[in-house]
């Protein structure tokens, strides 16, 4: 699916937990997420902390969208 969105002419950032799978399915901009059942959250944190964590990830995703890439790239910390 990520490839089809990219093919439609849209830059895509794939926020996903298992980055090797993301690489296999052909995503170009990849941001690693927290855990499979809650990629953009952490139920162990309280609500504000959790939202701050999510905000950090989303900002990282936006940053990836604003970065020119040449092929596949995983945006680690």
């Amino acid at each position, binding site marked *: 699916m990520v490839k089809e969105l990219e093919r439609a002419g849209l830059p895509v950032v794939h926020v996903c937990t*298992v980055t*090797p799978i993301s690489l296999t399915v052909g995503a170009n901009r990849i941001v690693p997420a927290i855990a499979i059942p809650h990629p953009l959250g952490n139920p162990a944190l309280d609500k504000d902390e959790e939202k701050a964590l999510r905000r950090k990830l989303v900002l990282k995703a936006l940053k990836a969208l604003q970065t020119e890439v040449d092929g596949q790239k995983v945006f680690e910390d």
Partner: protein
Amino acid sequence: MKYIILTNNPLAEDEFKETHDVEFVDGKLIDVLIKARDMVNCGAVLLNHPLYGSVKPNETPYRSLLIKCPAEPADGSFPAADPESVRLIGNAVNAFRKFIVKKEITNPSLLEDFQVVDLSLLKSAVAAADR
């Protein structure tokens, strides 16, 4: 190596409960796979292949999996999921769902045969894990 045996096979539970960490699933084969998947999603690592046995997944009612539980990272973050385990368990759940599930097996001697074979395949994995 520290690992648990996740199984719905009573024979396997009997065999290993004294010597190993056994988590018995009182349910069907798919319940074992789903339980394993949820553990894998949270960082556990599969040690044996979830589609073992040429007995197709909708034929045997039993499944026994060796699962290495992740160490909790000290910083409170989540253990990273093991990509190969995620892939294998995902494929296994899909493979299970693609076959027509047949009538539930109730014949005791047949059930015993399935238990024996499942145990045998489990033993070969345990032998490898313990060596």
